[in-house]
């Protein structure tokens, strides 16, 4: 096993053991925190595909996170009030079933990623960062001023959605769901990175000309990875909404995009487990520093600055001392 492999195993095991310990010690809130880590890490895993593998610095991934969240919010809201979403030309009703919600979240965020990607990928570099940011702002202002689903107030769902055979209201069972999905996404992204498609993307990142000479179109490769990336982040959004039983336009805000990016960078860009380590550290900091000082964001800023300046490989890069 490589050094990074060992670190990854430790992180994966740690994220499993902490909530199990919390269950034994009767600390339900720690389980909630671990669930939050797993979900945000999942969003990061999505972004990491675009960012690490595709080299696409998207400052608009909150769009997909938010779409996933609203997929859950809208479906569950209609199920809660027994009010069908549409009746003509055919009947669509709300649902409280997680698998169905996930499917809707994944498909709708993938479609959004396809549209946004097709337009944004015409640009590159700073322009790409900015155009993704612009799409994020469009969705954000739309969600705030669109009254049908709560506007800025957002939507409250009173009971968490259902998963066949499990009691999702029980924190540890809901954690289990998110943990399994996180592992599945990690497995998928490892497979993608090692596949011919992943290798082609890597070379497209390093030298687009080389890829074109062998007859591949970098635009298509990038669009594909952007769509997969958006879909995974969308799934995370649906779970996040379920964790909070609440969805609001702040899921679309550019600060949210920034936070997802921070998870990836803190942990280490293009490292498989980078987003997991980053999300865990961020939540830990938020939880502990938030109590120490009213001005705790100063310390988060200082830490972030230190990581960028002195530990470019992120946490995992630091632990493995740059080895793979």
């Amino acid at each position, binding site marked *: 096993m490589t050094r990074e492999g060992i670190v990854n195993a430790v992180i994966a095991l740690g994220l499993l053991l902490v909530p199990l310990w919390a269950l034994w010690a009767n600390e339900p809130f720690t389980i*909630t925190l671990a669930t939050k880590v797993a979900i945000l890490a999942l969003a990061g895993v999505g972004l990491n595909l675009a960012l690490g593998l595709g080299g696409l610095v998207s400052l608009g991934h909150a769009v997909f996170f938010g779409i996933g969240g609203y997929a859950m919010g809208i479906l569950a809201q209609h199920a809660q009030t027994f009010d069908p979403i549409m009746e003509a030309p055919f009947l669509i009703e709300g649902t409280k079933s997680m698998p169905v919600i996930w499917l809707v979240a994944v498909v709708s965020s993938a479609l959004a990623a396809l549209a946004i990607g097709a337009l944004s990928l015409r640009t590159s570099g700073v322009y790409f960062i900015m155009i993704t940011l612009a799409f994020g702002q469009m969705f954000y202002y739309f969600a705030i001023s669109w009254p049908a689903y*709560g506007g800025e107030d957002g939507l*409250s769902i*009173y009971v968490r959605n259902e998963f066949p055979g499990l009691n999702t209201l029980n924190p540890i069972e809901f954690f289990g769901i998110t943990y399994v999905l996180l592992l599945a996404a990690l497995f998928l992204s490892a497979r993608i990175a090692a596949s011919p498609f992943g290798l082609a993307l890597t070379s497209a990142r390093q030298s687009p000309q080389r890829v074109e000479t062998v007859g591949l179109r970098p635009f298509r490769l990038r669009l594909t990875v952007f769509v997969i990336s958006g879909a995974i982040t969308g799934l995370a959004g649906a779970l996040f909404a379920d964790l909070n039983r609440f969805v*609001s336009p702040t899921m679309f805000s550019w600060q949210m995009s920034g936070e997802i990016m921070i998870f990836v960078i803190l942990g280490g860009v293009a490292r498989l487990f980078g987003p997991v380590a980053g999300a865990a550290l961020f939540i830990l900091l938020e939880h502990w520093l938030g109590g120490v000082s009213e001005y705790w964001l100063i310390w988060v800023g200082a830490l972030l600055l230190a990581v960028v300046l002195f530990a470019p490989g992120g946490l995992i890069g630091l632990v493995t001392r740059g080895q793979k």
Partner: protein
Amino acid sequence: MILKNFALAAVIAALTGTTALAGGHSDAAKVGMITTLSGGGAGLGIDVRDGFQLALKMAGAENVELVIEDDQRKPEIAVQLADKMIQSEQVDVMTGIIWSNLAMAVVPAATAQGKFYLSPNAGPSALAGKGCHPNYFNVAWQNDNLHEAAGAYANEAGFANSFILAPNYPAGQDALTGYKRFYEGELAGEIYTKLGQTDYAAEIAQIRASGADSVFFFLPGGMGISFLKQYAASGVDLPVVGPAFSFDQGILQAVGDAALGVKNTSQWNKDIDNEANAAFVAAFQEEYGRLPSLYASQGFDTANLLLSALEKAPVSDADAFRAALKEADFASTRGNFSFGPNNHPIQDIYVREVIQEGDVFTNKIIATALTNHSDAYAAECQM
């Protein structure tokens, strides 16, 4: 193990700034306060917190253990803090939330889990009407109240053609609805601005061109400061009326001369003549070195309501405690205060005018807009 846990709790308490005022009495209660203490809008949360703590201190209440957390004005964070308070801290009563959207995210879940929630600021219409709950008490106002009072004042002042504006989000829509509910004149114009907008030149130009005889606006926080300064500089000199949020003690100094003489509606002011208010204003200045705001008074009243109920019944006896809360048997800084059928206030709402006292801008009451005013949603509440 118990000792270890105790030590751990002490460490956590020290780290999280928890105010542990010793428990152990049978009438003890653990209160979780989620409020905004960092980022934009922190001033409101700090005032509510300070008012609340001042009331506990003045009463020498050792039976209330207060846990305070900062929601950063983000609904997701507020929901998680609520989970933490309910799951880990096992609080009995929750309070503190400033913003309606955060309240909508937290309150229904908290009351559904059997916790009491005392709102020191937000009063969204959904929680006053169909979504009302026996464990939810609003100690401030229903969101529409101050706007309704502004509408009533507009009639008295003889306004017949108002131009009204508010940000495009639910509280803004409620504000305009509230004003129109009582206002009887014509509308010269009605606009929704972008939330967080800071430049109002385009809107002021529309006001100028509209032929209105008065302006009603609801623009909380920095938006209101910007609007008033720009309005004063524009040379449009129509009378302005608005709810107290743009004229509270915290931001009035930042508005300065531009606010002088503006009428605004509020359920509280520092010159309301009663013993509780005089004591509160003096003690607040003594303790924190600044004048109290409307938010501070609401935090103060919330704590006193809680203490009054604790004197009558322990939290553990939920029915008795609920009944004790409902009596609202405390000396409010606003004078008369009681709860309507939906646990929202029945109170007087005043018209204030911004004046200058030495260097300090502040408000003085000039009239009563509505007497014993309830809210428009009470009839929809079934509980």
